[in-house]
């Protein structure tokens, strides 16, 4: 009787899990279940090139298929023995019985389970204006937003994180009037620190993006036909718009795991080997997983960076295969995390842990002329835990990467 590993989730985490399971020697069946009707595709281009380049007159479903197809990841494994159930959602799991339920009424049993169900966008807690409200996570969201931006004069983006700022830049490049509403004193403040965040805001403002900082949305406004008409801030100020983009963070997709005694308080809690705590044949990868990682000793957290899908799958898959085949395996050190954001003509690249540091210092270049190149270091308890760079060739970043890696092996960084 052939054994089966089920991979719940068919985005980058699920794909890397499949690749790493095979690379770790798993020769038996793999069933991948993905709620979107597409093979795994890359999400970062959704906020940039796809919003700019899509034909705004195409219908949403065709456009979504086109986006997903052009962003599709190459599948680097032999298809034999791998079943893809796309457009299907996992609705429940009974881990003790090693079973999962799908939304088509099927129940599948497994010998090993990879949880890779990722995130869904948080929504503002208001009703109304639905046709003019947008999030950006999937190809379908991007297709819908592209059509809306073509017709919109005014766009309000709630949330000044990376996604909000990327969409702001793209919408501005499409000729829209753009306002970003962000409760903190700067956009991207937690990730970049005050200096670089302010510099990025200035770059946006010089290109016509308006920021409303230190304010939240208190109400939505509809016109007489129920279409989006705008928002009202918590100080009563109205801001009119045809398109509202809600870029206020994400919820991990873990509801299907309820009832199994897991810690689901913020994603799926895993140990250092990416095993779900208390389970010997269940691992989690990607955005949904909460774990310590290499540079943060305590507490475990979800890493919403693109690199985490690959880094966690590289760790989880060999461990799961070793468990299923009854062997031991050694897991190497965690790779240094990286991230980037592209906004207008700028690229910010991050290495290591840069969020909520004790101190940010300019290591090279200057914030005043940051578009010409700047490197900012992020420090915690006196150690360089990460760097942020704008307009810097990779060769310049290598010595800092080495320094950050050295710091991680010497210090136990508390986040």
């Amino acid at each position, binding site marked *: 009787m052939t054994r089966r590993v089920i991979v719940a989730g068919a985005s980058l985490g699920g794909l890397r899990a499949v690749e790493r399971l095979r690379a770790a020697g798993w020769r038996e069946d793999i069933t991948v279940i993905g709620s979107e009707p597409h093979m795994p595709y*890359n999400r970062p281009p959704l906020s940039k090139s796809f919003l700019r380049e899509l034909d705004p007159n195409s219908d949403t479903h065709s456009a979504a298929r086109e986006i997903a197809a052009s962003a599709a990841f190459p599948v*680097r494994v032999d298809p034999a023995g791998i079943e893809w159930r796309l457009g299907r959602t996992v609705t429940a799991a009974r881990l003790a019985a090693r079973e999962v339920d799908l939304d088509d009424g099927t129940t599948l049993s497994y010998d090993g389970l990879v949880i890779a169900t990722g995130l869904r966008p948080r929504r503002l807690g208001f009703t109304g204006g639905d046709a003019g409200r947008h999030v950006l996570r999937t190809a379908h969201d991007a297709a819908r937003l592209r059509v809306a931006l073509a017709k919109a004069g005014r766009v309000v983006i709630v949330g000044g994180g990376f996604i909000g700022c990327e969409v702001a830049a793209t919408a501005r490049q499409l000729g829209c009037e753009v306002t970003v509403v962000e409760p903190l004193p700067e956009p991207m403040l937690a990730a970049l620190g005050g200096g670089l965040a302010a510099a990025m805001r200035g770059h946006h403002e010089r290109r016509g993006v308006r920021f409303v900082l230190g304010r939240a949305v208190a109400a939505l406004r509809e016109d007489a036909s129920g279409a989006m008409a705008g928002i009202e801030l918590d100080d009563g100020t109205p801001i009119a718009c045809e398109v509202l983009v809600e870029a206020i963070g994400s919820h991990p997709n873990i509801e299907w795991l309820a009832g199994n005694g897991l810690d689901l308080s913020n994603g799926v809690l895993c140990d250092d080997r990416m095993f779900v705590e208390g389970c010997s044949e269940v691992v989690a990868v990607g955005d949904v997983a909460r774990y310590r990682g290499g540079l943060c000793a305590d507490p475990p957290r979800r890493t919403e960076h*693109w690199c985490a899908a690959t880094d966690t799958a*590289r760790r989880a898959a060999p461990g799961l295969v070793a468990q299923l085949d009854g062997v031991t395996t050694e897991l190497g050190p965690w790779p240094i995390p*990286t991230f980037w954001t*592209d906004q207008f003509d700028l*690229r910010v690249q991050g*290495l290591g842990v840069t969020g909520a540091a004790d101190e940010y210092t300019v290591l090279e270049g200057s914030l005043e002329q940051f578009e010409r190149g700047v490197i900012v270091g992020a420090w915690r308890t006196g150690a360089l835990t990460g760097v942020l760079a704008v307009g810097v*060739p*990779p060769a310049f970043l290598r010595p800092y990467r080495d320094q950050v890696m050295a710091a991680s092996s010497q210090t136990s960084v508390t986040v």
Partner: protein
Amino acid sequence: MKVLVDLDVCEYHGQCAIAAPDVFDLKDESTLLWDAEPDEALRADVEAAADVCPTQAISIQD
């Protein structure tokens, strides 16, 4: 091992040059150079580069 880079898809992030500095060299904002047949000893670095590329422009052919 042959290393292939799709320059139509490459966006010159240079993460490959950080992951595998002996194989990839991002000379400036729009010029990537790479060793098309690197030594087998560099396979782990090249695989890391292929994984970390934000646009998945790198593939390995054996």
